[in-house]
């Protein structure tokens, strides 16, 4: 029986060893924690680019989609007949220079969705700090373009972060004009209204005829509570912090405006 026991042990250990070996010989990729960046006023472009490259290839998780040519546009290599992102970012959107375009693409990803791709890009401000985002912007600019991220951008962002934010009762913008608020809050990046906007979420056209004010208010404050039929695949994209970003008067202005769209 000892011989049989040894054979069983051999098969067991051999199988475990094989799996361990196979898992050790394939490429080893670790998911790093995004390193918190702290720059002084004398930060150089090269330092920003180096930090950005590390985030792009590592903890930022950017390479999971960008670079494969299927889920998201290639950024480091050409996209179609265009060059890397640094050569094309300045001309992507009229009125947006390269730096502004890249930054907005990361913190408001629904704003610019390239034709042929799904709006799957997450809001990077939920996982990266402001400095980290600027570092990635600098790295992307360096891919065939000019790096113009400066210490002033970082300082401005830091000042914004340190100012009283959501929950303090101070709204982001002062206006109570609902159409202005829809623009300011980027609602039309995902909802169509007349000739404006995209249809990632339910259109605002005629929404007052389909939903009452209470439902609209609830959907703004807690978008996950009820997902409109047909839009389940985009559940989770809508920001959940409008309750903090809008004052009560602003929220009611938007709700009244949308409820009136019949």
């Amino acid at each position, binding site marked *: *029986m000892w011989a*049989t026991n040894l*054979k*069983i042990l051999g*098969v*067991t250990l051999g*199988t*475990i*060893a094989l*799996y*361990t070996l*196979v*898992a*050790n010989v*394939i*490429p*080893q*990729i*670790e*998911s*790093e*924690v*995004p390193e918190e960046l702290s720059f002084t006023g004398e930060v150089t472009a090269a330092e920003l680019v180096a930090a950005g490259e590390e985030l792009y*290839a590592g*903890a930022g*998780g950017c*390479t*999971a*989609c960008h*670079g*494969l*040519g*299927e*889920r998201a546009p*290639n950024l*480091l*290599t050409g996209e179609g007949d265009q060059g890397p992102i640094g050569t094309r970012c300045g001309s992507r959107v009229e009125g947006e220079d390269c730096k502004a375009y890249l930054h907005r693409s990361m913190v408001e990803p629904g704003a610019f969705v390239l034709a042929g791709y*799904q709006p*799957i890009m*997450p809001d990077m401000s*939920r*996982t990266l700090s402001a400095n980290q985002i600027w570092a990635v912007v600098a790295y992307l600019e360096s891919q065939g373009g000019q790096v113009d991220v400066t210490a002033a951008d970082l300082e401005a962002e830091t000042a914004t972060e340190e100012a009283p934010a959501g*929950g303090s009762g101070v709204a982001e913008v002062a206006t109570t004009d609902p159409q202005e608020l829809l623009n300011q809050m980027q609602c039309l990046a995902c909802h169509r209204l007349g000739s404006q906007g995209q249809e990632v979420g339910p259109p605002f056209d005629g929404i007052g005829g389909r939903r009452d004010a209470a439902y609209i208010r609830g959907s703004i404050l*807690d*978008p*996950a*509570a009820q997902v409109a039929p047909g839009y*389940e*695949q985009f*559940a*989770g994209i809508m920001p*959940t912090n409008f309750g903090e970003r809008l004052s009560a008067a602003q929220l009611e202005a938007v709700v009244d405006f949308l409820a009136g769209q019949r």
Partner: protein
Amino acid sequence: MGHDGGRPAALRPVIESRRVRWATATALGAGLALLVAVLPAWAQEAAGGAAAGAREYGQFPGIGSRAAIWIAAEVHLMFAAFVLGVPMFAMVAEAIGIFGGDERYDRLAKEFTRLLLIAYSATAIWGAVLLFFLTTLYPRFWSHMASIFEVSMWIYVGLFFLESFTLYLYYYGWERMQEGGAKYAHWGLAILLNVWGTAVMFIADSWLSYMMSPPATVTTDTASGMVQLWSVINNATWMPINIHRVIANVVFGGAVVAAYAAYRFLAAKSDEERAHYDWMGYVGNLIAIGALIVLPFAGYYLGREIYEYNEQMGITMMGGFMSWLWIIQAFLIGVLFLAGNYYLWVGMQRIPGAERFLPYTKWMLLVLIIGVIVWATPHTMIADRAELEAMGGSHHPFLGVLGVMSAKNTAVNLMILTTFLSFLLYRRANKRPVVSWARAATLVQSALFVIAAAIVLFYGVYGYFVTAIVRIGFSVYQVLAVLFTIVGVTAIDVFMLRGAESRGAVRWGKMPERSQYALFVLVVTFTWLMGLMGFARSGIRQHWHVWEVMRDTSPWAATPALGYAATMISACVLIFLGLISFIFWLGGLVEKPQLVPKRG
């Protein structure tokens, strides 16, 4: 094993019965006592959440806190899967014994329930270890969990007691509740045992799935008092994980039963014993592979829900730093399919009449091997700039887009169909149908196979000519075609083989020894795969204890690469298999199973 010295035969049942009671009562008592001992510390931790803020993490000597919690959680989970899978196994086996009149199944169910008693206490002990480690090594995180889930934790403990005492009643009442209505009441206990066990698992699943997919209403600033319990329990991935685990537990229970039988087969001293354990190994393998066939569908459901909850999380899982994990998974599942089919094909040698099917096995082997190769072909792996430049693009210069999901889905569906065909041939090997419509029915069955394979292949090829979002939808048609065939062919087979003539009885025990090693490979692979998938599920949270709600700020926050994970998984598998072997040995000491004369 299982010998009782020179004691008079008449005394043996009494002595054995006392031994079983003492052994199980002591072991269960120890487990429960440990759990109860932990509760004050747990309650204190929950109540003193604010105070615990001063100390966020503990330090475990030597291997570090992450490794310690990893081992405790994984080994606990493996035992939990075993003690949840085996009662399902016992419930079905006892039902076959009652309604099919085959007493062997009743004995089989009892034999495993006896082992369950000891394994149950091991599960409780590892649960207590996990709880100790959570409260001492991750106090901030555990304080958060306890403050949100406290009510469900109390219910969990209550259900745990109910489950324990139902198990006592189920096992110790076996002989007394053998006749008439009492037997049905006894089977009712098996159902109740599964109800408690499943409820316990569902509660624990809510905790871990919350960590992965907390509802949008919970943010970093949400006070625990504002959280609605049901919203965090019924989170996006809770039910998919519940379903996946129920099926996986059945698979795991069947595989462990088969491995136990394989060991007993190899150690058997008589033909009678060998025949019994050969049959038991067959039943265990049948259940394991049978449930494995539907497991990928539950996996797809879980994956889809992860994508719907958070696209970024889904991409991290399938295409981000975890992309290579799925190649390892394909390799492991390939081993499962090959070993499971090999066992069946070798087993056909002991069935009179099976010779007519043996020439087909080489073609089935070919389909399986090609399937494994296609499934294990890498695609959209995470690559850095240098690697992209070396490949000359986003895909491999030779393989191109061969490894897209179209090809992988096609491969796995054809492998499932092939394995189902193996079962079918095994099942009807020694039977000759007597119904007049047997030939027509066989033709219909063949047509179902061909149509399913054609649908799978058609959508597999067509998938290359459409966009990714359309391609993903095709997998539903492929799965439905395969499921329809499995259900349809099985239904036809059941009616066609009613009253079938026998070509000869199965020669139980006349099985080459090499076949039994396939069962060991199966149990090791299932256990390892469980560890790997646990790493995938937990790892996609990356540096978050609770996704986008609570960051992991410990020194072990980074999610390790597969090599390190594999070493940890192997350590857990060794600990589990070592302990379960000890439990089986212990089970053999206290009572010798009653063998029932075999049937054909």
